[in-house]
């Protein structure tokens, strides 16, 4: 539960930064997006059912900062999470290039749901694919940040002897 709250907190911080800094971080119809890599990173480590609750929480939070139709972000992120859980046993995601490929692949799903759901399907090419590519390229950086932040937050638990999370 604590980990679910932490990932929601990470997501909230990212959302705040992305919306407050706004236009300087947007190029055309794409932007620096940390949310998709966050869901991917979380999905690699946390199983159902608790995992999906956190992801739905992230989706609901995202909706508060956008004019998207209600439920679309939750649907997109839940889809991404379920996809990663489904393919989890068949993938290895330790190298940077593997993280890039995985996040790019998942981003296509997220971007497609968001664009089609908001009535802007014509932006899927080239902007949607460009966004997916950008998310993939930046994925190793985001994974590094999330790992560091996660270990910083949970290092105290480890010191106190709290059992390490091992649902995967």
């Amino acid at each position: 539960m604590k980990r679910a709250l932490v990932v929601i907190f990470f997501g909230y911080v990212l959302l705040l930064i992305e919306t407050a800094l706004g236009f300087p971080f947007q190029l055309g119809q794409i932007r620096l997006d940390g949310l998709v890599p966050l869901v991917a990173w979380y999905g690699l480590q946390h199983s159902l059912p608790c995992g999906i609750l956190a992801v739905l929480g992230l989706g609901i939070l995202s909706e508060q900062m956008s004019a998207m139709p209600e439920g679309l972000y939750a649907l997109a992120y839940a889809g991404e999470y379920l996809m990663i859980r489904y393919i989890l046993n068949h993938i290895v995601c330790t190298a940077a290039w593997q993280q890039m490929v995985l996040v790019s692949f998942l981003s296509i799903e997220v971007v497609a749901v968001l664009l089609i759901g908001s009535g802007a399907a014509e932006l899927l090419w080239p902007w949607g694919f460009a966004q997916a590519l950008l998310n993939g390229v930046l994925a190793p950086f985001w994974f590094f940040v999330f790992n560091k932040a996660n270990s910083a937050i949970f290092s105290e638990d480890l010191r106190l002897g709290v059992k390490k999370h091992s649902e995967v």
Partner: protein
Amino acid sequence: MTAYLVLAVVVFLIFVVVGLRLGSPAAVSPVKYFFVDLTGYLQKGLSGPSRWGKKLWQSYLALQDVELENKALRQEMIQLQKEIGRYREALIANARFKRLLGIKEKVGATVITANVVGVDLAPWLATITVDQGRKDGIKPGMVVMSGAGVVGQTMETSLHFSKILLLSDYNSAVAALIQRNRARGIIKGAGKGQCYLAYVEKVVDVEVGDRIITSGTDRIFPKGLLIGKVSSVTESSISDLFQEITVTPAVDLKRVEEVVVLVTNQPFVESRH
């Protein structure tokens, strides 16, 4: 006896000296000049290093002073640059506020000034968040303007913040007319900070640079507010009934920092989705 002798020598010397001073100087001049020269050289020899040391010391002190002065001047320069920056910012803000004040006088309605605090998470949606909400009297469906013209309309309001649907959003539609020939159309968002004027028949004469204003028929925007200028006109295909008219909003919607909300009691005419 010795005392008398010493006294005698002293008196003699006094007389010698006085006698030499009162007598012809030529007799003592060479000795005197030699002495003066010798002393001069010695003085020069001694004063050189001392002058050099003195100069060095003074230079050192001066350098220290210069360094301190430099530091002080640098700090002063930084302060002045900051101050210039603040003044410049204040000057720009002043110009913006004057324009906003102009809107209040022009429209004659109560206005609320608000600062932009956030943009939409999805880059293809053109909505912004401002720091005034229900508490300040803002409701959904109110007109939002900036110095140069219409920005959009309020969409959702919380107690302290409001979301604004910009003109350039794909879901935005505003009843408009071409100021020059009064031809009517609908301004729709085209994304990327641009709009297009829809439903203008091919027979209507439209020129690049024509001003587009609100027509007031949508019961949201008062008549006569500047929306933007025509940036391109295309005839489109033969089967199409209407022209393709691109409009550049009068306000740079991607850089808007402050807006004014016109407080009216009109209802929100059409829902967003």
